[in-house]
């Protein structure tokens, strides 16, 4: 059951990424290009997603088990450290260079984008060496 729901979540997530336009690197870079011709689309994607997710996080508050029985695994760390800052800065630099972040790159790879295959391969190597 855990795997079936994970599969469904991955499918819905992926369809959402395609519909939102985020599998297209040009739209992502268009959002980061504040000083040029700015495409605000990514802001609406994040705002919409956050609003729906916030309802679920409200529901989850104080619960110890999820509906399918697994324990709730919500990150507990509250430390604002250098790892978080430098890791996120590095991620943002790669994101701006290619216009891909992990989710959209995976989905774009499945649409047959060779660029996404190259990016994802390199990203997995980066994750593995870390």
């Amino acid at each position, binding site marked *: 059951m855990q*795997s*079936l729901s*994970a599969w*469904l*979540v*991955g*499918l*819905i997530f992926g*369809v*959402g*990424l*395609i*519909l*939102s*336009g985020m599998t297209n*690197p040009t739209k992502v870079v*268009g959002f*980061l*290009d*504040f000083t*040029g*011709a*700015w495409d605000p*689309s990514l802001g609406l994607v994040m*705002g*919409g*997603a956050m609003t*729906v*997710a916030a309802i*679920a996080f409200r529901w989850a508050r104080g619960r110890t088990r999820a*509906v*399918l029985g697994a324990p*709730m*695994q*919500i*990150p507990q760390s509250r430390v604002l450290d250098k*790892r978080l800052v430098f890791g*996120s800065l*590095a*991620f*943002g*630099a*790669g994101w*701006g260079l*290619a*216009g*891909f*972040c*992990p*989710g959209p*790159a*995976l989905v774009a790879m*499945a*649409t047959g984008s060779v*660029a996404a295959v190259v990016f994802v391969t*390199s990203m997995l*190597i*980066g994750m*593995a060496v*870390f």
Partner: protein
Amino acid sequence: MTLDWTAFTPWSSLAGGLLIGLAAALFLVLNGRIAGISGVLGGLLRPAPGDLAWRIAFVAGMLMAPLAYALWSPLPLTQNVAGYPMLIAAGLLVGIGTRYGSGCTSGHGVCGLARGSRRSLLATACFMASGFVVVLLARHLGSG
């Protein structure tokens, strides 16, 4: 700054965002987990016991999304912004950076901000800022 009205897709982006939010909500409610793609992938490379099946299923679902989407609408065009050497460098930065910083646009940007995490707010501010600077350098100062 000027708004690029020809590129702006308010309705489909909002609708897609709501679907992403629904996916994140379902994952939390059903599986008790954060739908962070870099976390799902990172855990796949070094799986904890009993952890492999759902991670593979999650990624399989994502990889099947274009097929599902194409059933009712043609897939949107993708226009790349980087050549292969740049894609390789960017992939390494994203791979190392998301593991080091414990998350990406989904885990920190969507889920983290939705649950009011200060760590995620800081992470999102950092990756937005460096993404902005890189695009500024590449687009407006690089070729000058």
